Every structure is written in structure tokens, then in C-alpha cells.
């Protein structure tokens, strides 16, 4: 039958078309109804399932004119056998901040991808982009021009600034300490050139979380993590606290005992918070959302340097600015980032993320170079080793110092 010829037999993959969780195999099969490329994918993937290895070749530089990033080139290592997926490039499309869509907008993307690609996507990629999964080199320019007509643009790839992303923030969350969507959009627009034209030693990612819950995992995977926080006392609605106790919440065990700084006291009636000891971890607020709220003076902590393990082991971002007001046009943040990028672009080694760069040159030297005062808030503790550098020393004349 014609159908059988078109959709390859995939007994291994078919096993994954079963079961309660929505199946990616079903998705590929759906796409395969229309796209030869997706049919090819079924074939090659079934083969990988049999052989236990992938069948994609390493890299390949393809892209759209004038841009250096946004497309991941991908070629099959079995082009004769699977000619439909000889090319299988990915387009990274910069998502709207907060991943909100109208059905209309999403449909235009689907239509475009029906015309020019495999009909497969990722919503979304780990960095946050809309991933259009699988097309041919000659489709890239047409895709790009249609995409921009629709008001979308490419995201990052390679050694550029990557698509910034953020948690849902003030759009739907009561805890957002600043406008994560506003900042993300603003930064994305501000760095259009740097997103599209790789000019750095390596990739650079921004992620914006509205509060310390960090729902966008920024501290683990953004070179610049902007995490909302507050100053001053947590706002308490005493009546609402009492209401919780009636719901069976054990304020002592569930809230006070779990507070990392043990700064909360509950006498069975009232909750007292020694706010000067609070480290703004969010736990008590998370547990008592109708009763507690972050303090009224809001802003963000700016952290730098997270990344995956290659080469020196994974890193978490670390504090650079303990508290910064976050209001448009975000001048202080942009100035700070500007200095950091400039320094790193100039002195970073190839494939050295900014976190690794800071560790190589020393955080103290880095701060000096970008003009930030060292603060104890930046460290978990001062140095334990006595290997302190001094740039100058006194020569025989006690008053004169050697450079």
C-alpha cells in the first residue's frame, strides 16, 4: 500500500507510541503524514534504536545572510539511505518573553513550518527558543524572510548572546519582585546585534527570575542570572496566618523549623519574623501564600557565571550585585553588563565562558577591571589559603612603591 511505502516500519519506536504519557513518536508520525523529512526521521531513528548510536554528522556551518547564529546545521551520515533528511537543520526562533502566545501567532508559525520544514518543533528549547526542527539549507532564506514578516526573529547559537528567557513573573505570579518579561524583552532588543552576530569568546546567556524560587533555573544555567528579591520586612497578614492553622498547617514544623535562618517564631497565635536575619529564601512565603508576601522594596540580585560542566566542572552563578533596583531602562544593569562583556570579549580565551574567565583571572581582579567594589556579600567566605597577591612592594626608600 501507498501508506506503507511512505511511513517506514518502526517496531521499536512503536513501543513508545504506547503508554499514558504523550508520545513524541506519535508526533513524528503525525508530522510524517505530511512531511517526507519526518518520514525520514522515523526511519533513521528506528535505525538508531536498533544500533544504539545516533546518525548525525558533526556540525556544519549554515545560516542566514548577515546573521552568524540562529541555525544549527545538521547532516545525516546516511544521506544515501535517507535522502529526505540528508539535511536536517534546526532554526532557533526567539520566543516572546514568558512564552505567552495567541493561537493566531502559533498558527502562523505552524503554517510556515508546514511550507518549509519537517513540521516538527520543540516548544521550547532548553535556552527558551522556539525550535523548528529540521529543514534544508535552501529553505533557510525563505524561512527567515517569512519569519521576520510575521514579526519573529532568530535566536542565538554559537559564540553570541543567547536568547534571554524568564519566568512568568508579574504576568501571573504574585511574587515577582520586578518585571521579568519587561526586562527580558528590553535586553533582547538591546542586544540584537550581539544575539545575531557571534563576537564573543563563547556563548552568553541571560535568565530572569522574579524571585528566589528561580522558576527559570537561572542560577544553574545563565551566565547572567537576575533573581528578584526584596529589602525590608516580609509583609504579614496575621489573620490569614491564623486561617492556615485551621486548614491543618503546622506553622511551627512546616514554616518556622524549615526557615534556614531560624528567624521565625510561632507562639500558637502570632507569627513573628526577625526580618534582619531573613535570607529571603521564599520558603515561608511559598507555604503561606495568602498570608505572607515579599517586602515592599523590590529589586534583584545579579549573579554571574553559571554553566554546564565542560571544561572545569559545572558552575552556579555567584553574587555580583546583592541588590539592584530593576526599572526601565535598566541603565545600571546594562552598564554593568556592558563592562563585563567588553572585558571578557577582550581577554577571554576562545571557548571560555565568563564564569571560567572570572575564575581564571580571579574575582577580585575581575571586579577591579569592571569597577565594582569588592563586597563580603559576593563570597560564601573569605579565602582560606594564604596565597595573597600584592601588586606592589616597598623598595629601600620606605616612601616609594614599585609598580
Amino acid at each position, binding site marked *: 500500500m501507498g501508506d506503507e511505502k511512505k511511513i517506514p516500519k518502526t517496531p*521499536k*519506536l512503536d*513501543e513508545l507510541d504506547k503508554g*499514558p*504519557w*504523550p*508520545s*513524541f513518536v*506519535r508526533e513524528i508520525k*503525525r*508530522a510524517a503524514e505530511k512531511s517526507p523529512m519526518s518520514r525520514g526521521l522515523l526511519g533513521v*531513528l528506528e535505525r538508531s*534504536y*536498533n544500533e*544504539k548510536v*545516533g*546518525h548525525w554528522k*558533526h556540525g556544519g556551518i549554515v545560516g542566514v545572510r548577515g546573521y552568524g547564529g540562529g541555525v544549527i546545521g*545538521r547532516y545525516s551520515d546516511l544521506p544515501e539511505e535517507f535522502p529526505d533528511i540528508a539535511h536536517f537543520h534546526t532554526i532557533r526562533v526567539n520566543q*516572546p518573553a*514568558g512564552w*505567552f*502566545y*495567541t*493561537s493566531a501567532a*502559533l*498558527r502562523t508559525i505552524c503554517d510556515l513550518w508546514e511550507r518549509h520544514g519537517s*513540521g*516538527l518543533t520543540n*516548544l521550547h528549547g532548553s535556552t527558551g527558543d522556539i525550535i523548528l*526542527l529540521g529543514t534544508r539549507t535552501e529553505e533557510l532564506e525563505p524561512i*527567515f*524572510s517569512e519569519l521576520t514578516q510575521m514579526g*519573529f*526573529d532568530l535566536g542565538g547559537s554559537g559564540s553570541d548572546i543567547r536568547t534571554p528567557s524568564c519566568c512568568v513573573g*508579574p*504576568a*501571573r*505570579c*504574585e511574587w515577582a519582585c520586578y518585571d521579568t*518579561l519587561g526586562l527580558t*524583552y528590553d535586553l533582547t*532588543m538591546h542586544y*540584537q546585534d550581539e544575539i*545575531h552576530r557571534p563576537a564573543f569568546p563563547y556563548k552568553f546567556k541571560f535568565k530572569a527570575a522574579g524571585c*528566589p*524560587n528561580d*522558576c527559570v*533555573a537561572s*542560577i*544553574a544555567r545563565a551566565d547572567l542570572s537576575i*533573581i528578584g528579591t526584596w529589602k525590608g520586612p516580609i509583609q504579614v497578614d496575621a489573620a490569614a496566618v491564623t486561617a492556615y492553622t485551621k486548614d491543618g498547617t503546622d506553622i511551627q514544623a*512546616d514554616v518556622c523549623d524549615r526557615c534556614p535562618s531560624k528567624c521565625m517564631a510561632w507562639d500558637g497565635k502570632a507569627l513573628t519574623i526577625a526580618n534582619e536575619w531573613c535570607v529571603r*529564601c*521564599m520558603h515561608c512565603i511559598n507555604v503561606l501564600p*495568602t498570608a505572607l508576601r515579599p517586602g515592599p522594596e523590590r529589586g534583584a540580585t545579579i549573579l554571574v557565571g553559571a554553566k*554546564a560542566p565542560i571544561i*572545569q*566542572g*559545572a558552575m552556579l552563578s555567584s553574587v555580583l550585585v546583592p541588590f539592584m533596583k530593576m526599572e526601565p531602562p535598566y541603565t545600571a544593569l546594562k552598564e554593568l553588563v556592558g563592562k563585563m562583556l567588553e572585558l571578557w570579549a577582550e581577554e577571554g580565551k576562545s571557548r571560555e565562558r565568563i564564569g571560567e574567565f572570572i575564575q581564571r583571572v580571579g574575582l577580585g581582579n575581575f571586579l577591579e577591571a569592571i569597577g565594582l567594589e569588592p563586597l563580603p556579600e559576593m563570597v560564601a567566605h573569605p579565602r582560606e589559603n594564604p596565597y595573597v597577591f600584592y601588586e606592589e612592594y616597598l623598595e629601600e626608600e620606605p616612601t616609594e612603591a614599585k609598580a
Partner: protein
Amino acid sequence: MAETVAQRKTDIGPPHYQKFLPPIVKQNYGQWRYHEILRPGVMVHVAESGDRLYTVRAGSPRLLSIQTIREFCDLADRYSGGHLRFTSRNNIEFLLTDPGTIDPLVADLNTRGFPVGGMANAISNMVHTQGWVHCHSAATDASGIVKAVMDELIGYFTTMKLPAKLRLALACCLNMCGAVHCSDIAILGIHRRPPKIDQDRLPKVCEIPSVVASCPTAAVRPKRIDGKETVEVIEERCMFCGNCYTVCPAMPLADALNDGVSIWVGGKVSNARTAPMFSKLAIPYLPNNPPRWPEVVEAVKHLVEVWAADAKKYERMGEWIQRIGWPRFFQKTGIPFTKQHIDDFRYAGLSYQRSVHIKS
């Protein structure tokens, strides 16, 4: 040519998010007062204005066909005025203003095979990567394992019976695309055989100094073979990170017999209670056994169950282990502790037990 350039739009950035926000969100932007989780996958956010926004969250395979996306669009048109969003863990969310539409939407989603849940003390969608579907670097498939694991754990997605949130993630190689290194349970594809060098191709396609510099353990050394400048790999020094391959296509690591996955536990990202933590090695190696990776599924399920049975309320995996200690973690899970568990990289010395505070 000059014409085309002129017409061509560049650097326009993404659409402004405001275009896509539902009216209730626009009106109450930054003015939310509190939220309540109403039942698995359904919550309400109440604004200062008194407006109530209902969110219904459904699981998604992330790898979506345009057909399915259009199906979501249909649902949005029907139930939420055409508005929808995706979460940072790739779930799909419908934003409703009429509580009466919740039940029909949930029913509709369930009928179409999209489970509603992933909220509060549940297992949410699994952050994952490309695997054999798209990446050249993969030591395992991504979507396949995720599907197999979530089929088994879906009962924890559609309920809220766990002690705390449990975040699963998978990355198909050590590049770790996603926050795998900070997950409650992470599945990580690993190679276990040094790169096989294509000596013909290498001198043509790779820059020798970059390749040599790429290796964290200095296993790659320049070498002259048959008059050509190329490299050799000191196999005992190789720990299969794949960084040489990233910079040099002539050094592939994928190997059907030796590739597989490792399991990591106890990471977290949030600052709630404890500071963010890295995941730690639990199971060094499990085989690639497609299509359903039964060993991996079993291992993950077991870890979830041991934790769920033993952890106190609000104790994430890593917080639970901090309380009971690693010796008991290994006892309770029955996982053997091996040489591979002991760090021998850069910060190894700090991972040794440097006190007599032993919990065993």
C-alpha cells in the same frame, strides 16, 4: 541584490510579549495577590482587583508536530480566548477566566492524551534535550527515555502526593543542555570509550592546538603519524567528556557497546530553604536498552519511591539526603557505592569526609 537587502528585515527581535497576553493578565499585570492550587494541574491566581485567573497545565512531549500545536490552538480558541503559554519545563498552560470551563478543558485534554498535572508537590515534565533525534553528540536518546520514564511516573504528575516537588531532567551527553546538573534526579547520557580518531580526516578538518587544549585531563597529545600532524589519545587519561569531539569532528565517541546513562540525584535550583545544590552521582552506568530502557526506568522509579516514602514534608531529594546522610542513601536505595562515586577531578579534595560526623 541591494534591493533584497533593503526589503529584508533583520534584528527586529521577538514579538512584544504584550501582544500575546490575555486581557486579564494585562489588566492585572504585577497586581496578583495570591494563588491557590485547586487540584492537580489547576490553580487560580487572584488579583488585587479581585480578578481570578485559572491556569490548567498539561504535560507535553515537547517534541511537537504542527498538527498537535494546532490542536492546542483549537483548545485555546475554545476555552481561553485563544490564549496559551508554555512553561519553563515545556508544559502547556491554558489561561481561563471562567471557572466553568475548567472541567470541560481538562476532560478534553485527557481525551486527547494530554495529562493535566505537574503542579505543587508533583513530578513535572522532564527537562530534556535532542538525543538521537537531532544531535551528533548524543550518548543516548532523549525523548525515548523521557517517554518511558514518564509513562511509569505519570501517577506522580497527575497527583500531588509527594513530600515536595521532584524535578527530573535528562541530557544526552556531558554538554548537559538543560539544568541537569541541578536536578532532583538527572539522567545523563555517557560515553565510555575514548574517541576513535579518524586519522585521515583529522589533519584536514581540525586545528591541532585547539584539540589538544580542549581536553580537561590532557589526554590528547599532538603526534606526527605518517608525516602528518595529528593527535593521539592517552586512553587511561580519557574520561569521555567529548570536548575534543566538540572541537574536532574527526574524534567521535559514540559507541553502541559502551554508551549508556548515569543517574544523578539531589540537585536543586530554588533558594527555598536550602541554597541551590548540584546533583551527585548515584548510579555510574546503566545500559542503553531501547526502546524502553527498563533498567533506567526501574532505577528512577525506585529512587522516587524510596525518597517519597522516607522524606519529610518539604524535603526535596537533596535535602532528604542531607538529613539522612549519603551512607544511608546508599543503604536505603540498595545502590552499591563504588570507586566511580568518589570524585577525582578538580575539587575532589573538598568532597572527602573531613570530620568524624559520620551518619551511618
